[in-house]
């Protein structure tokens, strides 16, 4: 790359207003060939809208887009792909009933032969360390694996500008490092990368340039390598970042016990649970780390009762054997659960927040003689909105009208305000901005200090190290012993993620996603 290179992409005073909000106001941004450029901002800062304008999904109201020095109007994503722009979206667009290779084929022009395409997918996935079996059906993939498919889909067409919208939210640190190697490799080949994220450490490690957005406006440009996370956070949220207050645990009685929990995989590509043992006491937070797709979904569904296990004794909740109990009866014992999928599982997208409060909190006297007491439900929803600082149109706003972070705050609030004895949370802060994430983590810790037993399953190690008292690792459906946090570190947990903890049964297969772990650790 010569220094006088024409910018790959240049935005001039882009403005886009929606009926209720100005998403982008006078935004300018320039990225050179081979540059990894961060677009930094909280949820709702306008990052996604800006990227959609570049990708032709959204038309700007004003401003200019220059592609390799020439003004262009990007009409639609197909046009963008023709220009050489690829985008990996935060929300996946995959058909669940089709296989990986069929999904990829749908996004390509013409009618590529599937066998050849499968080989290409395997090639690309090996080259860039994104292991995925092209023949698997998408519905059986975890969120992390689905994201790999989306990334591979983009890389197949050799883009000259790659837009990554929050790509690392479900990857392990090792996998993130591997992805970064991939991205640096791409950048070295001359590809420009626009990297959208709110994770400051990642941006520092990867990007050479950053544009910071707040409330739809540019609030700063910087070289992330010359900044500290604190200084970038200040640019991003306009104030200093709060840090969760932890304190020492005071574990009490065992509230949740898994004993020899074994469950066969429900589908041929799924992961089963094998001889899982775990105890969570009152007043402690136990974290479960692991690469996505190693049995987390199955474990959570078994604990919540969404799938039943063979022996009622393998799960004990507050002293009651619940393995054969349905979710409603477990909740009656004081069990609350925040699932990974917020829309469609944790909340009904087309229902109001009040109705969504009723969904799980109905035991708080919201039903009398079979009829719903709507006034009480609304009051509870309003209390939840106030206490958790949920930005919404009030209790009548539809769940799907909320941003991911705000909906997560609402769901967390709904479950925590029920004062659970046992709270299980999956991916508490996935896709949530830093401010809200710190808030949610603090609420989890507060609940622990009030004496609840808490199990957090997360694919973000930083988060687990921040809030857990003890940490276990799940790999290929097996669970490691839970180690007190002070006795372990990121590197050890990283090794455990490949299934190699002391006393683990020797296995021939490596767990999904483990292949890159040892290499990444050497790096």
């Amino acid at each position: 790359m010569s220094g006088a290179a024409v910018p790959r992409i240049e935005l001039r005073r882009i403005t886009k207003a929606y009926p209720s909000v100005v998403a982008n106001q006078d935004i300018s941004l320039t990225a050179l060939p081979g540059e990894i450029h961060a677009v930094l901002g909280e949820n709702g800062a306008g990052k996604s809208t800006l990227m959609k304008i570049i990708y032709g999904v959204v038309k700007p109201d004003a401003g200019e887009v220059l592609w390799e020095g020439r003004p262009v109007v990007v009409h639609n994503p197909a046009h963008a792909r023709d220009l050489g722009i690829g985008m990996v979206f935060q929300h996946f667009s995959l058909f669940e009933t089709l296989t990986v290779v069929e999904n990829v084929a749908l996004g390509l022009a013409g009618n590529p032969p599937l066998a050849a395409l499968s080989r290409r997918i395997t090639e690309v996935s090996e080259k860039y360390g994104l292991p995925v079996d092209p023949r698997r059906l998408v519905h059986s993939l975890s969120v992390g694996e689905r994201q790999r498919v989306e990334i591979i889909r983009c890389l197949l067409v050799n883009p000259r500008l790659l837009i990554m919208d929050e790509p690392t939210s479900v990857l392990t640190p090792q996998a993130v490092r591997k992805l970064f190697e991939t991205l640096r490799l791409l950048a070295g080949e001359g590809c420009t990368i626009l990297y959208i994220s709110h994770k400051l450490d990642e941006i520092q490690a990867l990007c050479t340039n950053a544009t910071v957005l707040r409330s739809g406006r540019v609030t700063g440009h910087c070289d992330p390598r010359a900044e500290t996370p604190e200084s970038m956070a200040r640019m991003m949220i306009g104030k200093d970042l709060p840090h969760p207050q932890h304190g020492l645990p005071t574990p009490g009685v065992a509230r949740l016990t898994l004993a020899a929990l074994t469950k066969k995989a429900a589908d041929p590509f799924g992961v089963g649970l094998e001889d899982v043992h775990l105890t969570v006491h009152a007043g402690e937070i136990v974290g479960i780390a692991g690469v996505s797709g190693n049995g987390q979904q199955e474990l959570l569904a078994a604990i919540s009762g969404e799938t039943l296990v063979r022996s009622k004794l393998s799960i004990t909740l507050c002293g009651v054997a619940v393995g054969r109990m349905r979710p409603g009866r477990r909740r009656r014992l004081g069990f609350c659960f925040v699932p990974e999928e917020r829309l469609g599982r944790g909340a009904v997208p087309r229902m109001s927040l009040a109705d969504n409060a009723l969904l799980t909190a109905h035991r708080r006297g919201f039903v009398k003689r079979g009829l719903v007491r709507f006034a009480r439900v609304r009051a509870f929803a309003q209390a939840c909105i106030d206490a958790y600082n949920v930005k919404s149109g009030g209790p009548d706003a539809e769940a799907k009208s909320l941003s991911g972070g705000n909906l997560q705050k609402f769901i967390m609030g709904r479950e925590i305000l029920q004062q659970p004895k046992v709270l299980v949370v999956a991916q508490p802060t996935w896709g949530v901005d830093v401010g809200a994430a710190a808030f949610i983590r603090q609420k989890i810790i507060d609940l622990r200090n009030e004496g609840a037993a808490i199990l957090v399953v997360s694919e973000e190690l930083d988060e687990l190290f921040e809030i857990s008292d003890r940490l276990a690792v799940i790999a290929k459906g097996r669970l490691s012993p839970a180690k007190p946090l002070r006795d372990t570190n990121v590197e050890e947990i990283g090794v455990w993620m490949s299934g190699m903890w002391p006393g683990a049964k020797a296995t021939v297969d490596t767990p999904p996603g483990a292949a890159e772990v040892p290499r990444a650790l050497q790096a």
Partner: protein
Amino acid sequence: MRFKLEARPEPSRRMGYLSPVLAAALTIVAGFVLFSALGRNPWQAFYTFFVYPIHDLNGVTELLLKASPLMLIGVGLACGYRANVWNIGAEGQLVLGAIFAGGVALHFQGSESALVLPAMFVAGAVGGMLWAAIPALLRTRFNTNEILVSLMLVYVANLLLSWLVHEPWRDPEGFNFPQSKQFTESALYPILLAGTRLNLGFVVALAAVALGYVFLNRSFLGFQLRVAGLAPDAARYAGFNAGRMVWLGMLVGGACAGIAGMGEVAGPIGQLLPVVSPGYGFAAIIVAFVGRLHPVGILLASLLMSLLYLGGEAAQMGLNLPSAITGLFQGMLLFFLLASDVLINYRVRVVRPAAAAPAPAATTA
């Protein structure tokens, strides 16, 4: 210039309500075209079809009489449809209700007891529920498709009724016609308005609408049905039993259809015949959807559908048109409704040719 369908950012609430109105208007417009094509004066045909049938008290009571089973079944079906339980076999459940109620009436032939009618009511509901229980059981046990099973059971029910009136229950003094004895007074719904055929069944249907409203919009069970329909994973997460929702949706629909069948034999028909319904069970599906699965909407839609039945009869007599005209109008109404429903999620945008041109070559160079 061409038209383009563009996805709305969120479904239009206004179009949700306007779509049935638009569908009704388009049906009438298409009717005009149809009548003209058949060589009838469209204005006169319109009058004969839509106005003449309700120009006097007798007409209005007939309208309400025919609307009663439609709204009753429609409300019942809406309970299931809200939970994505697709009971298409209300016609069969109606027939079973008629058979069960008719069996009670024939067994107590000649009795003056005031309990005969309530017994028929219960028997009708039980008959409809039994018929609906078959697809419910097969779906919850073996994961069969309730659409197919409930639909196929309609034909079984019709043949069962046909056999009964041809063989065991045939009136021995009926000149060999395939029909049962006439029911006695105690087995008939009381007439509401002397000189007309409007009977207590109308009140029952209105009560069903009111109960349906409370059940669907105020009760916790109705809430669970809606959740199960909108987001099955959320229902499982919250601990609502999916199998129970299927049973509930099917049984409520079956009970309402069965009661409607009882109302036909205890009302305008007064005996068992080989055919006890002019397709109310199927028309009620259209009623439920035109009424947006909302009891009040269903009430209005049932009146419209009833008018189509009456108009069809009037068109046969007054305009010399074939009886298929009723089905034709029902079909058009459903067709236009489904077409109009596209506008809930999409809007029409006019695209000028210039704006639709492909990107200039220079930008891709």
